[in-house]
Protein backbone atom coordinates (compact mmCIF):
# COMPACT_ATOMS: atom_id res chain seq x y z
CA UNK A 1 0.00 0.00 0.00
CA UNK A 2 2.67 2.35 1.07
CA UNK A 3 4.66 1.52 -2.04
CA UNK A 4 1.72 2.45 -4.31
CA UNK A 5 1.32 5.80 -2.66
CA UNK A 6 4.99 6.47 -3.11
CA UNK A 7 4.79 5.72 -6.81
CA UNK A 8 1.90 7.97 -7.72
CA UNK A 9 3.66 11.31 -7.09
CA UNK A 10 6.71 10.07 -8.93
CA UNK A 11 4.70 9.26 -12.05
CA UNK A 12 3.05 12.65 -11.89
CA UNK A 13 6.45 14.28 -11.62
CA UNK A 14 7.69 12.44 -14.69
CA UNK A 15 4.76 13.51 -16.87
CA UNK A 16 5.03 17.12 -15.74
CA UNK A 17 8.71 17.27 -16.58
CA UNK A 18 8.05 15.62 -19.98
CA UNK A 19 5.47 18.30 -20.79
CA UNK A 20 7.90 21.05 -19.78
CA UNK A 21 10.54 19.37 -21.93
CA UNK A 22 8.21 19.44 -24.93
CA UNK A 23 7.39 23.11 -24.34
CA UNK A 24 11.08 23.96 -24.25
CA UNK A 25 11.67 21.99 -27.45
CA UNK A 26 8.83 23.82 -29.20
CA UNK A 27 10.09 27.23 -28.08
CA UNK A 28 13.53 26.31 -29.41
CA UNK A 29 12.10 25.06 -32.72
CA UNK A 30 10.13 28.29 -33.12
CA UNK A 31 13.50 30.03 -33.26
CA UNK A 32 15.69 27.55 -35.15
CA UNK A 33 13.13 26.86 -37.90
CA UNK A 34 12.91 30.55 -38.78
CA UNK A 35 15.23 33.19 -40.18
CA UNK A 36 15.12 36.98 -40.20
CA UNK A 37 13.97 38.57 -43.44
CA UNK A 38 13.77 42.33 -43.91
CA UNK A 39 11.69 43.95 -41.19
CA UNK A 40 10.63 40.52 -39.85
CA UNK A 41 13.37 39.95 -37.29
CA UNK A 42 14.04 36.74 -35.39
CA UNK A 43 12.97 38.51 -32.16
CA UNK A 44 9.43 38.02 -33.43
CA UNK A 45 9.81 34.35 -32.52
CA UNK A 46 10.21 35.12 -28.82
CA UNK A 47 6.94 35.23 -26.93
CA UNK A 48 6.02 37.94 -24.47
CA UNK A 49 4.04 37.20 -21.30
CA UNK A 50 0.62 37.48 -22.92
CA UNK A 51 1.50 35.42 -25.98
CA UNK A 52 2.98 32.70 -23.79
CA UNK A 53 -0.02 32.53 -21.45
CA UNK A 54 -2.47 32.34 -24.38
CA UNK A 55 -0.78 29.59 -26.41
CA UNK A 56 -3.00 26.65 -25.54
CA UNK A 57 -6.59 25.61 -26.33
CA UNK A 58 -7.67 26.77 -22.87
CA UNK A 59 -7.05 30.22 -21.47
CA UNK A 60 -5.36 30.75 -18.08
CA UNK A 61 -7.29 30.93 -14.81
CA UNK A 62 -9.23 34.09 -13.89
CA UNK A 63 -6.55 35.46 -11.55
CA UNK A 64 -3.84 35.16 -14.21
CA UNK A 65 -6.09 36.74 -16.83
CA UNK A 66 -6.77 39.66 -14.48
CA UNK A 67 -3.08 40.14 -13.72
CA UNK A 68 -2.17 40.10 -17.43
CA UNK A 69 -4.99 42.48 -18.32
CA UNK A 70 -3.93 44.99 -15.66
CA UNK A 71 -0.37 44.97 -16.97
CA UNK A 72 -1.60 45.49 -20.54
CA UNK A 73 -3.99 48.27 -19.43
CA UNK A 74 -1.00 50.17 -18.06
CA UNK A 75 0.54 50.30 -21.57
CA UNK A 76 -2.31 52.21 -23.16
CA UNK A 77 -1.48 55.77 -24.16
CA UNK A 78 -4.57 57.90 -23.67
CA UNK A 79 -4.99 61.05 -25.76
CA UNK A 80 -3.93 64.35 -24.22
CA UNK A 81 -6.72 66.22 -22.39
CA UNK A 82 -9.10 63.29 -23.01
CA UNK A 83 -9.67 64.51 -26.55
CA UNK A 84 -10.50 61.58 -28.81
CA UNK A 85 -11.61 63.70 -31.78
CA UNK A 86 -9.72 64.98 -34.81
CA UNK A 87 -9.96 61.84 -36.93
CA UNK A 88 -11.37 61.67 -40.44
CA UNK A 89 -13.68 58.73 -41.11
CA UNK A 90 -12.61 58.64 -44.76
CA UNK A 91 -9.02 58.05 -43.69
CA UNK A 92 -10.32 55.56 -41.11
CA UNK A 93 -12.07 53.62 -43.88
CA UNK A 94 -8.79 53.23 -45.78
CA UNK A 95 -7.05 51.96 -42.65
CA UNK A 96 -9.88 49.52 -41.90
CA UNK A 97 -9.81 48.16 -45.46
CA UNK A 98 -6.06 47.74 -45.78
CA UNK A 99 -4.64 44.52 -44.41
CA UNK A 100 -1.10 45.37 -45.43
CA UNK A 101 1.96 45.80 -43.31
CA UNK A 102 4.60 44.19 -41.08
CA UNK A 103 5.22 41.11 -43.22
CA UNK A 104 8.72 40.25 -44.47
CA UNK A 105 7.70 41.53 -47.92
CA UNK A 106 6.86 45.02 -46.59
CA UNK A 107 9.75 47.45 -47.04
CA UNK A 108 9.16 49.52 -43.88
CA UNK A 109 7.42 48.95 -40.54
CA UNK A 110 5.35 52.12 -41.13
CA UNK A 111 2.17 52.94 -43.07
CA UNK A 112 0.38 49.78 -42.02
CA UNK A 113 -3.28 48.99 -42.48
CA UNK A 114 -5.49 48.03 -39.57
CA UNK A 115 -6.85 44.94 -41.34
CA UNK A 116 -10.19 45.48 -39.57
CA UNK A 117 -12.26 43.96 -42.39
CA UNK A 118 -10.27 40.73 -42.22
CA UNK A 119 -12.30 39.86 -39.12
CA UNK A 120 -15.10 42.43 -38.69
CA UNK A 121 -18.12 43.65 -40.66
CA UNK A 122 -18.22 47.48 -40.52
CA UNK A 123 -19.79 49.23 -43.53
CA UNK A 124 -22.87 47.06 -44.21
CA UNK A 125 -22.33 47.55 -47.95
CA UNK A 126 -19.01 45.71 -47.82
CA UNK A 127 -19.90 42.05 -48.38
CA UNK A 128 -16.35 40.77 -48.26
CA UNK A 129 -15.99 41.14 -44.49
CA UNK A 130 -14.55 38.50 -42.19
CA UNK A 131 -16.45 36.86 -39.35
CA UNK A 132 -13.79 36.01 -36.75
CA UNK A 133 -14.59 39.15 -34.72
CA UNK A 134 -18.04 40.55 -33.87
CA UNK A 135 -19.88 42.73 -36.39
CA UNK A 136 -19.23 46.43 -35.87
CA UNK A 137 -22.02 47.55 -38.20
CA UNK A 138 -23.72 50.64 -36.73
CA UNK A 139 -21.03 50.87 -34.02
CA UNK A 140 -21.57 54.47 -32.95
CA UNK A 141 -25.27 54.50 -33.71
CA UNK A 142 -25.95 51.47 -31.52
CA UNK A 143 -23.58 52.22 -28.66
CA UNK A 144 -23.70 56.01 -28.53
CA UNK A 145 -20.69 58.19 -27.83
CA UNK A 146 -20.71 58.42 -24.05
CA UNK A 147 -17.31 59.03 -22.45
CA UNK A 148 -16.89 55.45 -21.14
CA UNK A 149 -17.84 54.03 -24.57
CA UNK A 150 -15.38 56.25 -26.42
CA UNK A 151 -12.65 55.57 -23.87
CA UNK A 152 -13.20 51.82 -24.03
CA UNK A 153 -13.00 51.88 -27.84
CA UNK A 154 -9.72 53.81 -27.80
CA UNK A 155 -8.29 51.41 -25.25
CA UNK A 156 -9.47 48.35 -27.18
CA UNK A 157 -7.91 49.68 -30.39
CA UNK A 158 -4.66 50.53 -28.59
CA UNK A 159 -4.31 47.28 -26.66
CA UNK A 160 -7.09 44.71 -26.97
CA UNK A 161 -5.38 42.46 -24.43
CA UNK A 162 -6.16 44.96 -21.65
CA UNK A 163 -9.78 43.85 -21.85
CA UNK A 164 -9.29 40.17 -22.70
CA UNK A 165 -5.74 38.91 -22.27
CA UNK A 166 -6.28 36.19 -24.87
CA UNK A 167 -8.19 38.29 -27.41
CA UNK A 168 -7.61 37.35 -31.06
CA UNK A 169 -7.22 41.04 -31.92
CA UNK A 170 -3.75 42.53 -32.46
CA UNK A 171 -2.49 45.26 -30.11
CA UNK A 172 -2.55 48.10 -32.64
CA UNK A 173 -1.10 50.93 -30.54
CA UNK A 174 1.07 48.93 -28.16
CA UNK A 175 2.46 46.83 -31.03
CA UNK A 176 3.15 49.91 -33.19
CA UNK A 177 0.88 48.54 -35.90
CA UNK A 178 -1.03 51.84 -36.07
CA UNK A 179 0.00 55.35 -35.03
CA UNK A 180 -2.02 57.53 -32.66
CA UNK A 181 -3.22 59.58 -35.65
CA UNK A 182 -4.37 56.43 -37.46
CA UNK A 183 -6.25 55.28 -34.36
CA UNK A 184 -8.04 58.65 -34.30
CA UNK A 185 -9.12 58.04 -37.91
CA UNK A 186 -10.44 54.57 -37.05
CA UNK A 187 -12.30 56.10 -34.07
CA UNK A 188 -13.98 58.53 -36.49
CA UNK A 189 -14.86 55.64 -38.81
CA UNK A 190 -16.57 53.89 -35.88
CA UNK A 191 -18.31 56.89 -34.25
CA UNK A 192 -18.89 59.63 -36.87
CA UNK A 193 -22.60 59.75 -37.81
CA UNK A 194 -21.48 60.47 -41.40
CA UNK A 195 -19.39 57.29 -41.54
CA UNK A 196 -20.90 54.47 -43.62
CA UNK A 197 -20.53 52.27 -40.53
CA UNK A 198 -23.40 54.25 -38.96
CA UNK A 199 -25.56 54.69 -42.04
Amino acid at each position, binding site marked *: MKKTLMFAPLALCASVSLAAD*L*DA*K*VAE*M*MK*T*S*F*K*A*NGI*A*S*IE*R*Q*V*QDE*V*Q*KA*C*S*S*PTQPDAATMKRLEEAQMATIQWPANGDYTGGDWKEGAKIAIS*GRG*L*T*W*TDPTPDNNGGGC*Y*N*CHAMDPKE*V*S*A*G*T*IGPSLVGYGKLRGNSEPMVKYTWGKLWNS*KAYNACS*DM*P*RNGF*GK*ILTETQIRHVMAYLFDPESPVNK
Partner: protein
Amino acid sequence: MKKTIMAVAIGAVALTAPNMQAMASEDLNFDAYRQMLADGNPAELFEMEGEELWRTARGPKNATLEQCDLGVGAGVVDGAAAQLPRFFADTGKVQDLESRLMHCMETLQGIPSAEIINGKFRQGERGKLASLVAYVVTHSNGKKVQVDLSHPKMKEMYDMGEKVFYYRTGAMDFSCASCHSQDGKRIRATQLPNITTSKGAAEGWGSWPAYRVSNSQFWTMQHRLWDCFRQQRTAEPVFASDVTIALSVFMAGKGNGYEAVWPGVKR
Protein backbone atom coordinates in the same frame (compact mmCIF):
# COMPACT_ATOMS: atom_id res chain seq x y z
CA MET B 1 -19.60 25.61 -82.21
CA LYS B 2 -21.77 28.16 -80.46
CA LYS B 3 -21.52 26.17 -77.27
CA THR B 4 -17.75 26.25 -77.43
CA ILE B 5 -17.60 29.99 -77.62
CA MET B 6 -19.93 30.19 -74.65
CA ALA B 7 -17.66 27.97 -72.64
CA VAL B 8 -14.65 30.13 -73.37
CA ALA B 9 -16.56 33.27 -72.50
CA ILE B 10 -17.67 31.91 -69.12
CA GLY B 11 -14.16 30.84 -68.30
CA ALA B 12 -12.82 34.25 -69.09
CA VAL B 13 -15.49 36.31 -67.36
CA ALA B 14 -15.42 34.37 -64.15
CA LEU B 15 -11.77 35.20 -63.66
CA THR B 16 -12.11 38.97 -63.67
CA ALA B 17 -12.26 40.62 -60.27
CA PRO B 18 -15.61 42.46 -60.37
CA ASN B 19 -17.42 39.26 -61.21
CA MET B 20 -15.71 37.39 -58.42
CA GLN B 21 -17.19 40.00 -56.10
CA ALA B 22 -20.59 39.66 -57.69
CA MET B 23 -20.42 35.95 -56.98
CA ALA B 24 -19.27 36.67 -53.45
CA SER B 25 -22.22 38.95 -52.81
CA GLU B 26 -24.65 36.17 -53.68
CA ASP B 27 -23.66 33.73 -50.98
CA LEU B 28 -19.91 34.06 -50.40
CA ASN B 29 -19.72 30.48 -51.52
CA PHE B 30 -17.20 29.54 -54.13
CA ASP B 31 -18.22 25.91 -54.40
CA ALA B 32 -19.96 26.39 -57.75
CA TYR B 33 -16.94 28.24 -59.05
CA ARG B 34 -14.63 25.52 -57.82
CA GLN B 35 -16.75 22.84 -59.46
CA MET B 36 -16.54 24.72 -62.72
CA LEU B 37 -12.76 24.68 -62.42
CA ALA B 38 -12.31 21.15 -61.17
CA ASP B 39 -12.57 19.65 -64.64
CA GLY B 40 -9.79 21.71 -66.13
CA ASN B 41 -7.55 22.19 -63.10
CA PRO B 42 -4.40 23.79 -64.54
CA ALA B 43 -2.38 21.96 -61.85
CA GLU B 44 -2.36 19.23 -64.51
CA LEU B 45 0.16 21.27 -66.47
CA PHE B 46 2.51 21.07 -63.49
CA GLU B 47 1.76 17.39 -63.08
CA MET B 48 2.78 16.79 -66.72
CA GLU B 49 6.04 18.62 -66.13
CA GLY B 50 6.58 16.69 -62.88
CA GLU B 51 6.08 13.34 -64.57
CA GLU B 52 8.66 14.31 -67.17
CA LEU B 53 11.08 15.42 -64.43
CA TRP B 54 10.62 12.16 -62.52
CA ARG B 55 11.73 10.17 -65.57
CA THR B 56 14.43 12.48 -66.91
CA ALA B 57 18.08 11.91 -66.04
CA ARG B 58 19.27 15.17 -64.48
CA GLY B 59 21.77 16.71 -62.08
CA PRO B 60 25.51 16.11 -61.60
CA LYS B 61 24.85 12.36 -61.33
CA ASN B 62 22.69 12.36 -64.46
CA ALA B 63 20.08 10.10 -62.89
CA THR B 64 16.29 9.91 -62.85
CA LEU B 65 14.15 9.79 -59.70
CA GLU B 66 12.79 6.37 -60.58
CA GLN B 67 14.66 4.80 -57.65
CA CYS B 68 13.31 7.36 -55.16
CA ASP B 69 11.62 5.69 -52.19
CA LEU B 70 8.74 7.81 -50.95
CA GLY B 71 7.89 5.29 -48.26
CA VAL B 72 6.07 2.64 -50.28
CA GLY B 73 9.07 1.20 -52.13
CA ALA B 74 11.64 2.46 -54.62
CA GLY B 75 10.00 4.22 -57.54
CA VAL B 76 6.44 3.70 -56.28
CA VAL B 77 4.37 6.85 -56.69
CA ASP B 78 0.89 5.35 -56.39
CA GLY B 79 -0.55 6.17 -52.96
CA ALA B 80 2.79 7.57 -51.75
CA ALA B 81 1.53 11.05 -50.86
CA ALA B 82 -1.37 9.69 -48.80
CA GLN B 83 1.03 8.09 -46.26
CA LEU B 84 3.31 11.12 -45.88
CA PRO B 85 4.80 12.56 -43.73
CA ARG B 86 6.43 9.44 -42.25
CA PHE B 87 9.56 8.37 -40.41
CA PHE B 88 12.34 7.21 -42.76
CA ALA B 89 14.94 4.87 -41.29
CA ASP B 90 17.56 5.79 -43.92
CA THR B 91 17.62 9.45 -42.90
CA GLY B 92 16.52 8.92 -39.30
CA LYS B 93 14.04 11.74 -39.84
CA VAL B 94 10.38 12.45 -40.26
CA GLN B 95 9.96 13.80 -43.80
CA ASP B 96 7.07 15.26 -45.77
CA LEU B 97 6.73 14.81 -49.52
CA GLU B 98 8.80 17.88 -50.29
CA SER B 99 11.70 17.15 -47.95
CA ARG B 100 11.74 13.52 -49.13
CA LEU B 101 11.85 14.54 -52.80
CA MET B 102 14.62 16.99 -51.93
CA HIS B 103 16.52 14.11 -50.29
CA CYS B 104 16.07 11.96 -53.43
CA MET B 105 17.21 14.80 -55.68
CA GLU B 106 20.36 15.15 -53.59
CA THR B 107 21.21 11.46 -53.14
CA LEU B 108 20.17 10.18 -56.58
CA GLN B 109 20.78 13.19 -58.82
CA GLY B 110 23.38 15.12 -56.84
CA ILE B 111 21.30 18.30 -56.73
CA PRO B 112 22.32 19.98 -53.45
CA SER B 113 19.47 20.46 -50.98
CA ALA B 114 20.92 23.85 -50.05
CA GLU B 115 20.03 25.09 -53.52
CA ILE B 116 16.36 24.32 -52.81
CA ILE B 117 16.37 25.44 -49.16
CA ASN B 118 17.96 28.79 -50.05
CA GLY B 119 15.96 29.19 -53.26
CA LYS B 120 12.62 30.81 -53.97
CA PHE B 121 9.21 29.30 -54.51
CA ARG B 122 8.29 28.67 -58.17
CA GLN B 123 11.88 29.23 -59.27
CA GLY B 124 14.85 27.02 -60.10
CA GLU B 125 15.10 23.63 -58.43
CA ARG B 126 12.44 24.54 -55.84
CA GLY B 127 10.07 25.24 -58.73
CA LYS B 128 10.92 21.88 -60.28
CA LEU B 129 10.32 20.23 -56.91
CA ALA B 130 6.80 21.71 -56.92
CA SER B 131 6.06 20.11 -60.29
CA LEU B 132 7.28 16.78 -58.92
CA VAL B 133 4.91 17.29 -55.98
CA ALA B 134 2.03 17.85 -58.44
CA TYR B 135 2.91 14.57 -60.15
CA VAL B 136 3.18 12.54 -56.94
CA VAL B 137 0.03 13.86 -55.23
CA THR B 138 -2.07 13.26 -58.34
CA HIS B 139 -1.36 9.57 -57.78
CA SER B 140 -2.99 9.76 -54.35
CA ASN B 141 -6.03 11.73 -55.50
CA GLY B 142 -9.19 10.29 -53.96
CA LYS B 143 -7.19 8.09 -51.59
CA LYS B 144 -7.67 8.23 -47.85
CA VAL B 145 -5.00 9.99 -45.82
CA GLN B 146 -3.25 7.20 -43.87
CA VAL B 147 -0.38 8.59 -41.85
CA ASP B 148 1.28 6.16 -39.43
CA LEU B 149 1.82 7.91 -36.11
CA SER B 150 3.12 4.86 -34.24
CA HIS B 151 6.85 5.67 -34.49
CA PRO B 152 7.99 7.70 -31.43
CA LYS B 153 9.47 10.40 -33.69
CA MET B 154 6.16 10.74 -35.52
CA LYS B 155 4.33 10.98 -32.22
CA GLU B 156 6.75 13.64 -31.02
CA MET B 157 6.37 15.61 -34.27
CA TYR B 158 2.58 15.41 -33.93
CA ASP B 159 2.70 16.72 -30.36
CA MET B 160 5.08 19.51 -31.34
CA GLY B 161 2.89 20.38 -34.32
CA GLU B 162 -0.10 20.69 -32.06
CA LYS B 163 1.82 23.00 -29.73
CA VAL B 164 2.97 25.12 -32.69
CA PHE B 165 -0.63 25.34 -33.88
CA TYR B 166 -1.49 27.21 -30.67
CA TYR B 167 1.82 29.10 -30.40
CA ARG B 168 1.20 32.83 -30.46
CA THR B 169 4.05 34.99 -31.58
CA GLY B 170 5.00 37.76 -34.00
CA ALA B 171 3.97 41.37 -34.46
CA MET B 172 0.24 40.66 -34.26
CA ASP B 173 0.09 37.90 -31.58
CA PHE B 174 -1.37 35.36 -34.01
CA SER B 175 -1.15 31.60 -33.84
CA CYS B 176 -2.61 29.20 -36.41
CA ALA B 177 -5.49 28.79 -33.95
CA SER B 178 -6.36 32.51 -34.20
CA CYS B 179 -7.96 31.80 -37.57
CA HIS B 180 -8.39 28.02 -37.68
CA SER B 181 -10.07 26.95 -34.43
CA GLN B 182 -13.75 27.67 -35.05
CA ASP B 183 -16.27 26.31 -37.53
CA GLY B 184 -17.67 28.46 -40.34
CA LYS B 185 -15.40 31.48 -39.96
CA ARG B 186 -13.99 33.64 -42.73
CA ILE B 187 -11.18 36.14 -43.34
CA ARG B 188 -12.78 38.53 -45.78
CA ALA B 189 -14.53 36.13 -48.18
CA THR B 190 -12.15 33.23 -47.63
CA GLN B 191 -13.54 30.31 -45.68
CA LEU B 192 -11.26 28.92 -42.99
CA PRO B 193 -11.12 25.23 -42.09
CA ASN B 194 -11.35 24.49 -38.36
CA ILE B 195 -8.12 22.52 -38.00
CA THR B 196 -8.87 21.54 -34.38
CA THR B 197 -11.37 19.03 -35.80
CA SER B 198 -10.45 15.98 -37.91
CA LYS B 199 -12.75 17.07 -40.70
CA GLY B 200 -11.26 20.56 -40.78
CA ALA B 201 -7.69 19.27 -40.60
CA ALA B 202 -8.44 16.98 -43.54
CA GLU B 203 -9.97 19.89 -45.45
CA GLY B 204 -6.76 21.83 -45.03
CA TRP B 205 -4.30 19.00 -45.49
CA GLY B 206 -6.25 17.22 -48.22
CA SER B 207 -6.83 20.20 -50.51
CA TRP B 208 -3.25 21.48 -50.78
CA PRO B 209 -1.12 21.49 -52.89
CA ALA B 210 -3.39 23.46 -55.16
CA TYR B 211 -3.61 25.66 -58.20
CA ARG B 212 -4.58 29.20 -57.24
CA VAL B 213 -6.74 30.78 -59.90
CA SER B 214 -6.37 34.32 -58.55
CA ASN B 215 -2.64 34.37 -59.32
CA SER B 216 -2.33 31.39 -61.72
CA GLN B 217 0.20 29.72 -59.43
CA PHE B 218 0.64 26.17 -58.19
CA TRP B 219 1.35 26.16 -54.45
CA THR B 220 2.70 23.23 -52.46
CA MET B 221 1.97 22.73 -48.75
CA GLN B 222 5.39 24.19 -47.88
CA HIS B 223 4.44 27.28 -49.88
CA ARG B 224 1.03 27.43 -48.19
CA LEU B 225 2.53 27.24 -44.68
CA TRP B 226 5.19 29.81 -45.59
CA ASP B 227 2.49 32.28 -46.61
CA CYS B 228 0.41 31.53 -43.49
CA PHE B 229 3.43 32.54 -41.38
CA ARG B 230 3.96 35.63 -43.55
CA GLN B 231 0.42 36.72 -42.79
CA GLN B 232 0.91 35.81 -39.14
CA ARG B 233 3.75 38.36 -39.17
CA THR B 234 6.39 35.99 -37.86
CA ALA B 235 9.97 35.77 -39.13
CA GLU B 236 10.38 33.64 -42.26
CA PRO B 237 10.13 29.86 -41.85
CA VAL B 238 13.01 27.92 -43.44
CA PHE B 239 11.99 25.60 -46.29
CA ALA B 240 11.34 22.05 -45.01
CA SER B 241 12.35 23.06 -41.46
CA ASP B 242 11.12 21.17 -38.40
CA VAL B 243 8.26 23.58 -37.78
CA THR B 244 6.81 22.92 -41.25
CA ILE B 245 7.18 19.15 -40.81
CA ALA B 246 5.64 19.25 -37.32
CA LEU B 247 2.60 21.19 -38.53
CA SER B 248 2.25 18.83 -41.49
CA VAL B 249 2.33 15.75 -39.26
CA PHE B 250 -0.25 17.35 -36.97
CA MET B 251 -2.63 18.21 -39.82
CA ALA B 252 -2.19 14.94 -41.72
CA GLY B 253 -2.44 12.85 -38.56
CA LYS B 254 -5.55 14.65 -37.41
CA GLY B 255 -7.08 14.30 -40.88
CA ASN B 256 -6.35 10.57 -41.07
CA GLY B 257 -9.08 8.55 -42.77
CA TYR B 258 -10.43 11.40 -44.88
CA GLU B 259 -10.18 11.49 -48.65
CA ALA B 260 -7.58 13.72 -50.29
CA VAL B 261 -8.52 15.89 -53.27
CA TRP B 262 -5.12 16.31 -54.89
CA PRO B 263 -4.13 18.61 -56.42
CA GLY B 264 -6.73 21.10 -55.25
CA VAL B 265 -7.96 24.21 -56.97
CA LYS B 266 -8.40 27.46 -55.05
CA ARG B 267 -9.59 30.91 -55.97
